[in-house]
């Protein structure tokens, strides 16, 4: 039985609580992008993907997710913990010495659910394409999902991969870009304009969809639509429009909270805005 939209929203609210608590606890990390992408992660891991928390690196017969913009690790880790990959109590070790929950995700610490290191931007789409090619060679019908930041599109390797996937009909791949229009130094359109992303990806030969990334019903619906469009010769790109910091009013829509931790008072303010639903770790 798939969870209802309301149930997914409750899970998302808990994950948002985890994000601000994790970043607060170690006084470092990236809350803004994590909060913006929480609905996507929740939909993916609790409704859309066919995956097994009894983690196997090779993922034969199951869907794979790659996080390319690794700095939003808080949302990734919390989602994995809630999905049963590891104990939720481990979230308290985030970014602390001897943790498996490194600042940016890595396979080096053997954390279940992580299949590639990411942090240095622009590499995840290539990796996802490789995994998708292997699935095709293995006759494995399951899918590969990736998430990227919009600022990450400024890396040249993304466009190498963008060219490759349609040319090679990698149509078991559903990529998503978190279009929040913000990066460390300010709004994306001031740092380095991305232009018309829909037209760009379409010009490269992708099947392009758009969704409201902070509307759970729309996220689930669009990801399901994307799944229905796989196997038709084109890779799929979803432009996901989100607000950085979504769910915490003083963090919303500003690049200021890209990589800043809340203080004690701000933590309480944030938690007051996020309904506790499932119990904190």
């Amino acid at each position, binding site marked *: 039985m798939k969870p209802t939209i309301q149930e997914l929203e409750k899970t998302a609210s808990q994950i948002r609580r985890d994000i601000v608590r994790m970043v607060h606890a170690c006084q470092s990390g990236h809350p803004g992008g994590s909060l913006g992408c929480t609905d996507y992660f929740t939909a993916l891991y609790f409704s859309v993907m066919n995956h097994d928390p009894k983690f196997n*690196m*090779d*993922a*034969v017969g199951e869907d*794979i997710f*790659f996080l390319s913009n690794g700095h939003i690790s808080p949302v990734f880790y919390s989602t994995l913990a809630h999905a049963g990959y590891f104990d939720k109590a481990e979230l308290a070790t985030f970014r602390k010495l001897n943790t498996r929950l490194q600042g940016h995700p*890595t*396979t*080096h610490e053997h954390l279940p659910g992580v*299949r*590639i*290191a*990411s*942090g*240095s931007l*622009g*590499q*995840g*789409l*290539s*990796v*996802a*394409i*490789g*995994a*998708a*090619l*292997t*699935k095709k*060679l*293995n006759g*494995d019908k399951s899918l590969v999902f990736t998430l990227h930041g919009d600022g990450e599109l400024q890396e*040249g*390797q993304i466009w*190498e*991969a963008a*060219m*490759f996937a349609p040319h*090679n009909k990698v149509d078991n791949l559903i990529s998503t870009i978190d279009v929040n229009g913000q990066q460390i130094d300010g709004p994306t359109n001031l740092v380095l304009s991305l232009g018309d992303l829909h037209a760009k990806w379409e010009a490269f030969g992708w099947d392009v969809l758009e969704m409201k990334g902070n509307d759970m019903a729309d996220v689930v619906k669009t990801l399901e639509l994307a799944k229905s469009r796989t196997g038709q010769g084109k890779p799929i790109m979803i432009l996901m429009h989100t607000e950085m910091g979504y769910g915490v009013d003083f963090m919303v829509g500003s690049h200021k909270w890209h990589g800043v931790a809340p203080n004690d008072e701000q933590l309480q303010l944030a938690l007051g805005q996020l309904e506790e639903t499932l119990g904190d770790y």
Partner: protein
Amino acid sequence: MKKYTYTDKKDTRSGFGAGLLEAGRKNDQVVALCADLIGSLKMNDFIKEFPERFVQVGIAEANMMGIAAGMTIGGKIPFTGTFANFSTGRVYDQIRQSIAYSNKNVKICASHAGLTLGEDGATHQILEDIGLMKMLPGMTVINTCDYNQTKAATLAIAEHDGPVYLRFGRPVVPIFTDPDQKFEIGKAWMVNEGADVSIFATGHLVWQAILAGEILAEEGIDAEIINIHTIKPLDAEAVLKSVAKTGCVVTAEEHNRLGGLGDSIAQVLATHNPTPQEYVAVNDSFGESGTPEQLMTKYGLDAEHIVLAAKKVMKRKQNAVISI
């Protein structure tokens, strides 16, 4: 001095091509990727027999490294192919994060290493790749000396679990190793036992070391020659054993003297048995245009320079004894 003769000369990269084909036949998980240099990497035979297991990436080496890393998820054993410069320096961060740090079973196969791209000049040559790759934790670094050894190494790395950098060259060089050899990763190969000086050579310089050994023998100097085909993990035991006997060392490589085989050996010696050492290597400079033969002479990477280095280091050994 053991006598090495040869009846045939071939390029080491053709050994890679032959090894790749055979590895592909032995294991259907072996796949190959190339960045628009199929002919240069001698991948044609593999592609002809296994077209579905070949990925043409185009001139996009960063993407190639990422795709190779991703292909390991699900069990493939990817071999990437391009020139050594574009296999390492150009894509260092991709190799570091997606392959080495992620411990992916990718075989980075690099042709035209060192000065051997000759006339193309420094942009297409690389003298820093051994250093770059050996500094990555978990990376195995191999540099082969002839056609047979390159073929054997290619087969061996297909069976080795973990990231590997395999370095080979373009020019035609004598085939002097056994066609049916078993390549043991990390195990140095004794070319010639001797008592007066240890010559540790890698890649194309192994043949030059053999020629140097013959010249030295004529002058009554008994050189021990060891082929260090695996620079990492280094066979420290073989190095120390040889040095205990000879008391002085020449290292020879087609690489910058900083960060290559010579430094790996110096590190072992400094911590276990400090020993006089001379480097036959490029003296911290870029390459330039010229035929490979001209460049090897100009940069001092030939038998003659190994002989000079051996005599020099033997003198230092004697002085060291006297000073005590």
